[in-house]
């Protein structure tokens, strides 16, 4: 399995470094969006977010100072240009 060229993965590792400490959107499989500042991310896609806002169907439902998201629920992590 270790035959994969490292260049394949480079775009992922650079993205992870890039988004550290930046505002991101995390979408879960359930369709719920979490917008916040990415504090931490691991190989399971477990995520720690700060200043988190919870959006259900595009509407703000809740705010959390700090939030931990278990990686198995994560659909994607996206960059966020500015608050929409």
């Amino acid at each position, binding site marked *: 399995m270790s*035959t994969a060229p490292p260049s394949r993965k480079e775009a*992922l590792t650079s993205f992870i470094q890039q988004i550290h400490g930046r505002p991101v959107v995390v979408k879960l499989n359930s369709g719920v969006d979490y917008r916040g500042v990415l504090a931490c991310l691991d190989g399971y896609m477990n995520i720690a977010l700060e200043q988190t806002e919870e959006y259900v169907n595009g509407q703000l439902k809740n705010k959390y100072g700090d939030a931990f998201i278990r990686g198995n629920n994560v659909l994607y992590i996206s960059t966020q240009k500015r608050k929409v």
Partner: protein
Amino acid sequence: MTSVTTNPSTLLPLELVDKCIGSRIHIIMKNDKEIVGTLLGFDDFVNMRLEDVTEYEATPEGRRITKLDNILLNGNNITMLVPGGEMPDA
């Protein structure tokens, strides 16, 4: 394992995906979701880095479209990858 990798006439599935790096790709997910974007890279789990992404969700109210700049997509829910495919209308 080694016989597969050394035989030049066989292409490993992930090598096919590797050929798509830099081009548009259509991703069909589990649970009525499809994603179109430019593939920048992926890992052994087929987690993917995508750019200029459009996400299509089938909802009871119709199709919901979300545009995204740059994403790290979890490979866990991917069903199929279609190279070069743009989303059909309809």
